[in-house]
């Protein structure tokens, strides 16, 4: 349910964000709009619930999407309070635009993994299978962090992939692998874990793998700066860290 709600919110964002402006931030409490990368879907849903238990005066609203799409919304002036990106390059573009006031914090780390449909019907054993023409292969689009990382991993392995689709975010890719429509895709290790057996994971060797750093920041124009800082502090706290660890994220 949580996941569906988050996705719905993500889809409606373009229209909603513009009109939601100015409702939050009256004194302590109120709505905190958190734009978070798709790979954080479950972890941040739990984070939201735990944060609101401790701070009932705040109402966290999650805006989930590909980090590059979230970045564009922020650059276009969406009234977002917190940005949690799946890579540093999207965050850097926001910082460069002067949209971040305080400092960045790396709050989580992730690894890449090959996702295959449950039971691995195509017999995928590693990155070299991504060059096989007869398989249906998916990657994230180039500007989405998982797409950038995925291509790095393939390059490290010296594999030129035979790609059949470039999905707009990691969860769209994961869904198509889970449905059995794609034979393999490169996603985060945490995504494979999140499906509870809906997909199987094939490990990417350490030599080829990359570390995905997840930065988080309070935005300069945050309508609810107090709420934003409280939420970021919670993510970086022991309780926040243990939630991230539960979902398979590495901790810096």
């Amino acid at each position, binding site marked *: 349910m949580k996941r569906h709600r988050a996705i719905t919110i993500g889809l409606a964002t373009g229209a909603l964000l513009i009109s939601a402006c100015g409702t939050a931030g009256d004194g302590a409490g109120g709505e905190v709009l958190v734009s978070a990368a798709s790979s954080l879907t479950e972890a941040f849903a739990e984070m939201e619930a735990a944060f609101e238990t401790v701070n009932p005066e705040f109402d966290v609203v999650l805006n989930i999407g*590909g980090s590059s799409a979230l970045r564009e919304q922020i650059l276009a002036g969406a009234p977002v309070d917190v940005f949690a990106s799946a890579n540093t390059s999207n965050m850097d573009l926001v910082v460069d635009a002067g949209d971040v006031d305080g400092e960045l914090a790396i709050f989580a780390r992730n690894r890449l993994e090959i996702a295959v449909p449950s039971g691995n019907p195509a017999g995928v054993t590693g990155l070299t299978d991504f060059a096989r023409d007869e398989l249906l292969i*998916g990657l994230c689009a180039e500007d989405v962090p998982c797409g950038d990382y995925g291509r790095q991993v393939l390059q490290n392995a010296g594999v030129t992939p035979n790609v059949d689709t470039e999905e707009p975010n990691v969860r*769209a890719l994961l869904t*198509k692998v889970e*449905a059995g429509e794609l034979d393999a895709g490169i996603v985060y290790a945490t995504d494979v874990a999140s499906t509870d057996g809906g997909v199987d994971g094939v490990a990417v060797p350490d030599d080829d793998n990359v570390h995905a750093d997840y930065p988080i920041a309070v935005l300069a124009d945050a309508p609810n700066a107090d709420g934003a800082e409280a939420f970021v502090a919670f993510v970086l706290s022991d309780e926040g860290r243990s939630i991230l660890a539960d979902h398979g994220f590495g901790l810096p």
Partner: protein
Amino acid sequence: MTKQATSRDRRKRRPPVVLVVLAALGLSVFVVPLLGLLARTPWRDLPTVLTSDVVLDALRISVIASLGATAISAILGVPLAWVLARVEFRGRSIVRGLVVLPLVLPPVVGGAALLFALGRRGLIGEPLNQMTGLVLPFSTWGVVIAATFVAMPFLVITVEGGLRNLDPRYEGAAATLGAGRWTVLWRVTLPMIGSSLAAGLALTWARALGEFGATITFAGNLQGRTQTLPLAVFVAMESDRGAAVALSLIMVVISLTVLIVLRHRWWGAI
């Protein structure tokens, strides 16, 4: 007397101010976004962007998909409209509801439904794949099917409307004069609903050209195979905003041109 009459006529002819203001606001809903687009258009880079591989590939796929969807809609949609307009049967209102459902359904839901039905593991897709080796998702055919799903209702409802407004006595007269059923259909019915048919085809084509949600969900996104203009815009929004704006501009120009050229028929039917 005469003077009074003229002034009353004039007043009658002048539209109420409130209506004009509201109408202008209504128009601004359509015009303001276009102005935003024009303001951001990188005019100097336009020739380079418009002749890039991404744009030409997307244009090609969009032309194939929108014309393919319109053709399939014409072949299947006109008979469907005819049955709905002329044949009394139980459950006709349910069938009509099913036909217009894609108009109100979010396209992404349509795309997911298509994936579960026609995907490699889908209800029909799986046996189809086993028998023929055909895989519809991630193929240009998939793009055509997604576009047909969202666009065909426009053809069916427009043509059905035209058929219901057609006086059946014309067809009756032709039949009395010895014309067979096919002759009546080709020589009387279809020509007489010509304007509805043209409007339906134009709307269908326009909807197919703009299709996004069902396409990316069902057919995926790959340059040169499944990436249509709307998908290319979506991807470019996150990487190269100038290209996104240029692509959007092409879509506006193409759509507007076609709709203006067809406007006489359009007004005639709706």
